């Protein structure tokens, strides 16, 4: 995958021009090829600052301040005349581009408050960290979520399975892969109509899930609602919560084995 970027101008700027200037501690050469982090540079690649795998806000803020000071010195030295940065809309390209063919649902993750526990064994405040993912459903999968009657109906297993294994996971502090199919021990999502007025239809949802593998587990209950105008989903709001335990290789749950309640919200991206 890296080979096709070998001659990419952005890659050359980053690794060949900027990279050699970065202090050893912030330019990863520790065996893996990853360069995840926060980096500051002049447009010609001149080094201003760097923080490999920079995730702690205080450290990132300090690095940005130092980079800003270095830049100001360069402005004076080189007699630059910085211009105002034009205001631009917030970066929303991802879900606008993806949304053309699929329906995007913003999924958020956060530990729920715990009785008698403000922090985990690593000192992290419970509920302070959160993460975000996207659930991408095709138009036909979205159609399957629309109930036809006022009685509860069990929604199609294939789509419910997709939702469960890709989204009902613990990524509050990092990454977790989708659950393998066999990890979905049990899962059911039901829906029913709650109102109909012309083309406008409202629906209610409820579900229970058990997900478990050798290293971690999550057993949420889900409630929610949605609104349709004809065939188009106009609004979707779901909330799932339940006990999680254990961890994955990169979700940084060491020091917080659980069981403890994890909350996940699903809201249609607009």
């Amino acid at each position, binding site marked *: 995958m890296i080979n096709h970027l070998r001659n990419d101008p952005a890659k050359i700027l980053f690794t060949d021009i900027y990279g050699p200037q970065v202090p050893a501690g912030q330019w990863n050469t520790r065996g893996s090829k990853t360069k995840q982090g926060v980096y500051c540079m002049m447009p010609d690649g001149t080094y201003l600052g760097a923080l490999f795998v920079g995730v702690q806000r205080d450290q990132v803020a300090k690095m940005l301040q130092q980079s800003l000071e270095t830049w100001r010195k360069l402005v004076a030295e080189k007699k630059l005349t910085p*211009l105002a940065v034009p205001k631009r809309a917030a970066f929303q390209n991802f879900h606008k581009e993806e949304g053309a063919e699929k329906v995007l649902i913003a999924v958020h993750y956060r530990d729920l408050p715990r009785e008698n526990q403000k922090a985990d064994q690593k000192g992290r405040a419970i509920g302070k960290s959160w993460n975000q993912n996207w659930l991408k459903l095709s138009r036909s999968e979205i159609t399957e979520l629309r109930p036809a009657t006022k009685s509860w109906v069990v929604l199609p297993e294939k789509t419910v399975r997709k939702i469960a294994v890709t989204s009902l996971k613990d*990524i509050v502090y990092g990454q977790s892969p989708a659950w393998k199919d066999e990890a979905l021990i049990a899962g059911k999502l039901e829906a029913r109509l709650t109102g109909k007025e012309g083309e406008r239809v409202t629906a209610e949802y*409820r579900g229970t899930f058990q997900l478990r593998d050798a290293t971690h587990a999550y057993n949420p209950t889900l409630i929610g609602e949605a609104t349709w105008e004809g065939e188009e989903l106009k609004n979707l709001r779901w909330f799932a919560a339940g006990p999680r335990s254990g961890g994955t290789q990169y979700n940084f749950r060491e020091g917080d084995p659980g069981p403890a309640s994890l909350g996940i919200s699903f809201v249609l991206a607009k």
Partner: protein
Amino acid sequence: MKFRQLLCFSTLLFGGANAEPEVGGRSLSEGIKVVRPSVGEDAWQKIGWRDGLLTAVDEAKKLHRPVLLWTMNGNPCGET
């Protein structure tokens, strides 16, 4: 006594029928509110990020401004 019992039963029946669903003691709105980022928590998403290093570099050259590059494994817009 019988009337009081009937009254309590009726309250439970009709109160239960209209009760908003909850999970872990939270309604749908309460649950979504506690999980989704609050004002200020998602400030980084309000920034007009450019979607490529060279896009930012070209603009920075014209503006005599520095470039901040944030890279991570996966999509910066989710599951960081």
